[in-house]
């Protein structure tokens, strides 16, 4: 449904007299299958939004090719626009308009008649449980309601693919869960959904497949389960005072681990067996022990092994 090869974009910004070129996206290859929820996971500034905006025809790539829903991005952006929906991160509704007015206008911008536009607006309002507030001004909506209007606007023309840029950022936990259900419903209706997120749990729970992006590049791709399986075994996290990290690193020679400001993470075959050995080794080296946690590898651990940084910290 979406196929890209070597997508690139850099921006030139001026700081005083100096020109600075930032390579926001450096060669992205993607294959998104029809009818899946595909996620772009990465920290802020990784290039997720830039990639999405290129695919949504809002910015022209410097290099690379992309085919979206059968239309070529470079040679026929107009056709791409007809086939996709795009929901920006910052919202898209006007304070003084009502949801219904916005939806009808949006539908009509895609060329449908007034009657059809009214019917579609009615249908998505019902689908997104917005009927009760449909004729109130957007400024009176809650954050979650407004976000649902944004998404409704993005799919009013029944696109094959919809891009959602950070659809749940800024929502409270309840609205987030609600939004996940809405996104799954879009998939059930046959749409291909492409989301960006910097939430690990969102990528894990919602997405069929993900690509992890960092610093303008994709560092790993696959289903969340496969990616986690790549890191075999368990993760043992030992909390330590910062001053003891160096000593701990020395004592743990032979283990596979990463060190952080206040903890060490070890990747082991079997956590239950490894913990006593680890504690003994640290104790022998006179390292003062804090907390010990055992967990299954998370997407954060995947990110960590690929980039050397934790997504939580970046």
């Amino acid at each position, binding site marked *: 449904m979406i196929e890209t090869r070597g997508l690139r974009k850099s921006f030139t910004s001026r700081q005083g007299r100096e020109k600075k070129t930032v390579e926001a996206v450096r060669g992205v290859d993607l294959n998104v299958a029809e009818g899946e929820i595909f996620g772009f996971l990465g920290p802020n500034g990784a290039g997720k939004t830039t990639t999405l905006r290129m695919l949504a025809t809002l910015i022209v790539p410097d290099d690379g090719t992309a085919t979206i829903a059968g239309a070529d991005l470079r040679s026929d952006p107009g056709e791409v626009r007809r086939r996709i929906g795009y929901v920006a991160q910052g919202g898209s509704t*006007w304070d003084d308009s009502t949801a219904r007015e916005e939806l009808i*206008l949006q539908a009509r*911008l895609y060329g449908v008649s007034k009657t059809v536009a009214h019917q579609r607006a009615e249908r998505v309002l019902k689908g997104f449980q917005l009927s009760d507030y449909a004729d109130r001004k957007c400024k009176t909506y809650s954050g979650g309601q407004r976000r649902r209007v944004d998404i409704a606007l993005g799919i009013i023309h029944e696109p094959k693919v919809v891009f959602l840029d950070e659809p749940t950022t800024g929502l409270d936990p309840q609205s987030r869960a609600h939004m996940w259900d809405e996104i799954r419903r879009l998939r059930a209706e046959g749409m291909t959904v492409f989301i960006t997120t910097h939430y690990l749990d969102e990528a894990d729970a919602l997405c069929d497949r993900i690509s992890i992006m960092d610093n303008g590049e994709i560092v790993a791709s696959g289903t969340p389960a496969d990616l986690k399986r790549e890191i075999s075994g368990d993760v043992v996290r030992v909390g330590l005072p910062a001053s003891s990290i160096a000593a701990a690193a020395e004592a743990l020679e032979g283990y596979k681990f990463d060190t952080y400001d206040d903890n060490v993470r070890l990747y082991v075959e079997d956590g239950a067996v490894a913990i006593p050995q680890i504690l003994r080794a640290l104790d022998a080296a006179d390292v003062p022990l804090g907390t010990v946690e055992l967990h299954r590898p998370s997407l954060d651990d995947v990110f960590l092994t690929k980039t050397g940084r934790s997504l939580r910290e970046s």
Partner: protein
Amino acid sequence: MKLLRDISLIFNRQMQLLLRNPVWILVGVFQPVMYLLLFAPLLKPALGVSTDAEAYEIFVPGLLVLLAIFGGLFQGFGLIAELRAGVIERSRVTPVSRVALLLGRSLRDVVSLIAQAVIITLLALVFDLRVFLGNLLLAYLMLALISLMTSAVSYGVALVVKSEDALAPLMNTVAQPVLLLSGILLPLTFAPGWLQGVADWNPFSWAVNGTRALFRGDLGAPDVWQGLLIMAVLAVLAVAWAAREFARSVR
């Protein structure tokens, strides 16, 4: 065909929003009305004319052109608010014509300017101003072209600078000399030669002269067609440029 449909879609939405708060049309007309009531009476002796009607014949056209210039130049603020709300981006991912995104808005500005012009003209009638309907309609055409041009320029600049903080001083800097050099408040017949020479390079000065000729009832004066032509050409250029800004990819 699609272009016309797109323009009317955008225009209707903008009109709908404008009419939801029609008070802004009145707010916009408040300042010129003050000029009309509190400044114009000074003009009879200053211009050396014998009746109020003559003074208004000179002053009202200038005032209307002033309204068209300023009204248009400050429309960009609304667009920056729309940019911030994400409305423009939302439109840009649809197949809607980019020219329509501009013209739908600019035509709304033209309509609201003409509404204001009518209010001012009616008030001036109370002060014994008399003008032929045909000439008045041509004068309104001139105003429409001016406002189309200035609002397009304002939208184009708004898309480039994307911030109110930059737009306000920029527009003021442009508007101030344009205003002074167009003989809007007082005709430049009183100006020293060098000032008149400079003013000849100000297109709005031609527009003001043309509009004054129309209010005078001098339809045959070359000022009329020259003013209309200059404004029409500039309006086309401004629209073409601003529409390109709508189409250009923004970060």
